[in-house]
């Protein structure tokens, strides 16, 4: 018994890593292809294409679209088939979409800065607005997102910001500044959390120092490191998945949180959300169409269908993320205290996170340095 156990255990770590690699084995050369922007026009699409001959493959985060989406889309658009594959994180989606070989994905849901990066690699089909009349449902603000002004290659699906989520019944003073997390007062010592994902780990310190969330300057990142190292002994934990639970249980009093993840409408506990005065980010999750897609008309029809207010409101009502769709938001009942009430203009005050290319390794190193210290 012990022998078989052993042979299974030893390679487990390797096998997991290996599988990820194997998935990409078919070719990695495309990752190095020259940066060809898609501004150059793509082939004209046929607005009268026969959708019954087209199938769609979509990759999206788990739980991010309605479960019945497949049936709904098939019925409404009359396309042959809709396959939904899931990705856990943007990084996994990027691996899928850039590893070369035939990934077969037509439409991908990724965050704005990743859409930007995909576009810089020439992997995205420009959006043909004439095929998506429902673009008119978007808030005017949602067409002015800094990574893609005018929605040239991406269509926003959800958006939000990052702030401090806190127990209003337990805090002695309501937080107003990122420094309330970074230098917590004595009553909150070891009762605050920061996120672990690189860019959001750095966000509170960057903003409290007055730097851009998209900085790639070494001296600024070094200052962020100092602030985070000083903050670490006063943190309960680094957490970007269960901070809401920690607030509900009372283990934590204030946490860095994405608005959609802050349980302000929890039936028992008094939880509120505040965007600190130093400012924050604006994150957008988008839909993009792959240039490699052979079903581009169906892909546009799919995005148009999602932008239908009756469909798009699902996200706001079920996953508690604001959707940049004015017509959809007008249909959503917003409970008192719900963060769905944040106005687009307020969101736009936040700075969009953009892809930093090679400089993103600086943030990875920063995060390793903070955890290893």
């Amino acid at each position: 018994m012990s022998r078989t156990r052993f042979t299974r255990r030893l390679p487990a770590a390797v096998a997991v890593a290996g599988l990820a690699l194997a998935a990409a084995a078919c070719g990695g050369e495309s990752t190095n292809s020259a940066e060809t922007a898609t501004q150059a026009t793509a082939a004209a699409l046929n607005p009268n294409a026969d959708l019954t001959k087209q199938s769609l493959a979509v990759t999206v985060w788990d739980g991010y679209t309605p479960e019945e989406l497949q049936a709904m889309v098939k019925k409404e658009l009359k396309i042959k088939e809709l396959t939904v594959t899931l990705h856990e994180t943007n990084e996994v989606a990027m691996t899928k979409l850039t590893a070369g070989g035939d990934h077969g994905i037509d439409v991908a849901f990724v965050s704005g800065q990743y859409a930007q990066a995909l576009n810089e690699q020439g992997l995205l089909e420009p959006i043909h607005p004439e095929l998506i009349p429902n673009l008119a449902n978007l808030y005017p603000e949602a067409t002015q997102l800094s990574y893609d002004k005018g929605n040239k290659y991406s269509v926003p699906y959800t958006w939000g910001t990052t702030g401090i989520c806190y127990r209003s019944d337990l805090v002695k003073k309501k937080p107003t500044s990122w420094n309330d997390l970074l230098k917590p007062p004595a009553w909150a010592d070891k009762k605050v959390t920061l996120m672990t994902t690189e860019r959001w780990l750095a966000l509170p310190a960057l903003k409290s120092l007055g730097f851009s969330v998209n900085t790639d300057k070494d001296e600024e990142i070094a200052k962020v490191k100092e602030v985070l190292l000083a903050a670490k002994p006063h943190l309960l934990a680094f957490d970007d998945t269960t901070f809401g639970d920690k607030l509900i249980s009372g283990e934590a009093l204030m946490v860095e949180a994405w608005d959609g993840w802050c349980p302000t409408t929890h039936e028992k506990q008094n939880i509120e959300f505040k965007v600190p005065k130093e400012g924050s980010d604006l994150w957008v999750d988008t839909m993009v169409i792959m240039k490699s897609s052979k079903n581009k008309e169906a892909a546009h029809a799919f995005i148009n269908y999602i932008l239908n207010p009756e469909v798009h409101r699902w996200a706001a009502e079920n996953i508690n993320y604001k959707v940049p769709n004015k017509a959809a938001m007008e249909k959503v009942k917003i409970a008192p205290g719900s963060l769905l009430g944040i106005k687009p203009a307020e969101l736009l005050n936040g700075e969009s996170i953009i892809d930093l290319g090679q400089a993103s390794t600086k943030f990875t190193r920063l995060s390793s340095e903070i955890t290893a210290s």
Partner: protein
Amino acid sequence: MSPSRGRRLGAFVFLSPGLTYLIVLLLVPLAMVLSYTVFQRGRFGGVVYEFTTENFSRLFDPLYLSVVVESLKLAGLATLIALLVGYPTAYLITRLPGRWKTVALVMIVLPFWTNFIIRVYAWIILLNGEGLINSGLEAIGLGPYELLYNQGAIVTGLVYSYLPLMVLPLYATIEKLDPQLREASANLGASGFTTFRKVTLPLTLPGVMTGSLFVFVPSLGNFVIPEMLGGGKSAMVGNLIRKEFLSARDWPFGSTLALALIAALLVLLVVQAWVARRA
């Protein structure tokens, strides 16, 4: 068909599923991991096939060395505690009457039937500031203590998760030990402790090595426990590798870290084989 050819065919038929599995899912990916170590990072993950030795020189960066040392410390401590707890447990089980032995062994393996994440999460519920242990202590006027989100919690989680892997091989070797050897030792006037030190322990050393290896190896590569019970405040090699692959999208360096881990574990395997052969 000659009998020997038939036997060879039989061996081939029986071995091929396992062999195919190993070659396709272990050796091929492993070879890929090894080859990536000398190439450069692609912007979105993947590799750019340009030769570099930079990944190896980065290994000796004090930042990563400190993580390695930290991991060795935590995994080593977990192994030691598992051994100190596991040896008496295994020893006692061998002394139980037959039926109870089976019951005891099933109890040891039982936790494996539950999802690993759920078991780790259960520790959060036990240990957190408002958790079961602390509220219990508070009821009798003690605490609260900081039990969670520190290195102690990581070691606790590792010991808990891998203790069965220590007990089982120990049980197997202690069970095999001829009781007459202990009797002979006692007859010759050795005290219980001397018998343990001079007879039982040396003869069960291979079990000690195997069990320790089973605990040490997965502990070293674990990334869930440091994240969940350690509150993400300390990193182990497993966390580093995961980060390089998933968030830093630096496959070549992730591969190099994985290679270093494999190399270290191979050394341990050789030591274990050597001890097993000598015993």
